């Protein structure tokens, strides 16, 4: 009697534990990491435009005024971009953050995969009162805020590689974005051609993830901060 009771208890524990694990796995697998979709806005020429921002925290983007779970983590304004297939996308990224040195300056400091192999960078002065614009093929890899690095996912969509360095903002002024205050942003504009339908992934390659995993932890290794997807339809 005692033995069968013990056996029943052990079996129930195993089943309950297994069930709890299965439930947790299902919840993790089905949890949507994405924010609201930001759809590329069609232009009269048949192309489209996307505008996003990179912030030194999470107070001005899709995480809301409170910054969500980690208001002090660096973030892009949106992690869920959508664009039509076989179209030229012109993208403008307003980069509000300061910066430092890339791990691989020569490679990630270069502009890759854009139309003409260039990006146009508008840099504010320290007071934020005027901008200097230049079209470049590379930037100083030791003074980069973030990168926008977009790649095809193996086996999903066409081959694609676009990588654009976003220089650090030199501004010390204060402007309001949402409810947050930042210096004037560096504005980086570039175009690239989407391929066939599929999900493409992008992320930052500047080590801005705090003190873990060689500064690739926290915001760099969590959904909704320094990475996202481009869904091409």
């Amino acid at each position: 009697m005692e033995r069968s009771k013990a056996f029943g208890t052990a079996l129930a524990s195993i089943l309950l534990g297994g069930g709890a694990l299965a439930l947790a796995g299902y919840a993790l697998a089905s949890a949507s990491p994405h924010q609201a979709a930001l759809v590329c806005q069609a232009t009269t020429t048949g192309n489209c435009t996307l505008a996003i921002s990179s912030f030194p925290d999470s107070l001005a983007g899709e995480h809301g005024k409170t910054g969500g779970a980690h208001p002090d983590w660096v973030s892009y304004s949106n992690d869920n971009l959508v664009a039509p297939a076989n179209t030229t996308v012109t993208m403008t990224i307003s980069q509000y953050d300061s910066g430092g040195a890339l791990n691989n300056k020569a490679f990630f400091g270069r502009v890759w995969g854009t139309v003409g192999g260039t990006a146009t960078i508008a840099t504010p002065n320290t007071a934020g009162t005027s901008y200097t614009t230049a079209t470049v093929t590379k930037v100083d890899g030791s003074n980069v805020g973030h990168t926008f690095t977009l790649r095809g996912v193996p086996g999903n969509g066409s081959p694609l590689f676009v990588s654009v360095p976003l220089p650090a903002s030199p501004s010390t002024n204060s402007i309001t974005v949402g409810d947050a205050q930042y210096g004037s942003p560096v504005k980086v504009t570039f175009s690239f051609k989407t391929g066939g339908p599929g999900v493409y992934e992008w992320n930052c390659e500047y080590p801005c993830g705090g003190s873990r995993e060689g500064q690739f932890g926290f915001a760099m290794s969590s959904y909704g901060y320094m990475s996202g997807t481009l869904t091409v339809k």
Partner: protein
Amino acid sequence: MAEMKNKENLKGMFATWVILTVVGVAIGVWGPARLMPRSMSDNMHLTILTMVVFTVAAAPVAAGVYAVALHALRHWVHKGDNVPAPAADQTRENATLTASWLIASTVLTVFLLIWGLGALAVDNGSSGRNPLVVDVTGQQWVWTFSYPGTNVQSPTLVLPEGRTVDFHIKALDVTHGFWIANMGVQVDANVGTTTMIHTTPTALGQFDIRCTQFCGLNHAFMVTTGEVVSKAQFNSWLASQSQKA
């Protein structure tokens, strides 16, 4: 009486050691060739042979540990809450046992060291005359293979059977790991440095190439395929790819 019992127990422990050693040696001889990827190169032959030799050499040592553990569990169990009195028949400072253990350990360790250094020397040795050079480039999350002297670039790797291949490996963005399990080839692909490794394909067929360094979001998908073909098929493939390029 206690001494006789102890001797009987030690005989049992010795018998257990012999049985476990035989099992370990059998696993060592049988396992590696069946559990490891199919060998398709001289490097992989050597890797599998090394696994066999090391497992067989380790079998008596592991068996000794397990035999003593089993013997202890069977005969040295103390029941009750009190602290047991020291056994009267303990074996201490047995010079023969100590010397045997030391000599056996030393011989085994030196043997494994010499074998390992020899295997490394073979891996790092000359690639011989007329090797086929293949430039390997890793980039998140694709591999590209180019064949110097031609204009061929390919996302898959095609190799001729029987000809030594010199891989010149580099990475463009972050550190990757170039791994062909079937060929016993695994080396890091670094930014700014070219690493080299060579092998000679010895069997026709397909194989996978994977990245072994965590290199970002889609590291797990940084996989491509390769194939070992006959020399004639290889020349034909190279010519057709050259025309496409």
